[in-house]
């Protein structure tokens, strides 16, 4: 049986670097580089850096 093909896009989790445990989930093309952006963290009430969490800790 043929292996199930992976979807073109994937859901990724962007974690707040303020270490508040707050995160946002986004969708990006699988072939795209990891996402990172400045976003608002409601816990510290500031714009902070959000970085994509890698599954299994593998940096792309």
């Amino acid at each position: 049986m043929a292996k199930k093909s992976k979807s073109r896009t994937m859901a990724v989790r962007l974690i707040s670097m303020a270490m508040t445990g707050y995160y946002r989930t986004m969708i990006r093309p699988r072939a795209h580089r990891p996402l990172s952006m400045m976003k608002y963290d409601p816990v510290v009430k500031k714009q902070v850096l959000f970085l994509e969490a890698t599954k299994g800790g593998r940096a792309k």
Partner: protein
Amino acid sequence: MATTQASSISSISKIPIRLRNFLARYPPQHYSAAVAPTPDQTTTTATTKTITATATPPAESAEPADAPSFPTLPSPYTPNRDAKGHKRPDPTAPSASRSLLYSNPEFPNPFLPRKNFRTGKWFGPVVGLRRQAELVKMAAKYNLEGLLPAGKKSTEFKETRRAERGLQIKGTGIGQKVKGHKWERTMESRLEDRRKAMTEMPEMVRLWKQRGHGRGWKKWPRR
């Protein structure tokens, strides 16, 4: 003199008849808690206490000046619960509160049960716990609690026992901690992490912008 006598008579007449009858039946000079020797004192002090008790009957004289100290006794706070299979403390073990329950063999305490050592039989107290409590409340109202025999309903006994038992809530004793929820236990370290991360944030953002908004970024967080 006559006036003082008259005033004392009038003050006595204010005492409820039930309490008066009890005190007449069990004279304080023989039965009261003030006559009972404190565990760490000799009989000589007991006799002096008798005198003071008869001279000034109010409850203050009945209270021992220093609380009885038992260095060998276990801590009055919650016992060590780390030990497996925690047992209730032995109720028959000697303790500060139990030592207050004194009964003179010559004048047996009507508030305490007694054992006939010849037959080995136990007899209940002459005055039951309900009536004891009523008498203690009545006596406390007229500041005469020191005249009553030692019993489980006396304020002194109750206070001593409370001190022995502590709050009986796990973690409230000396050197113990209330466990609390995990979020409460880890709160401090988490706030510290957050504070540290926020102080390093501008530098991190500067680096991130420098490396092409994430293009050259190597340290991705783990999920």
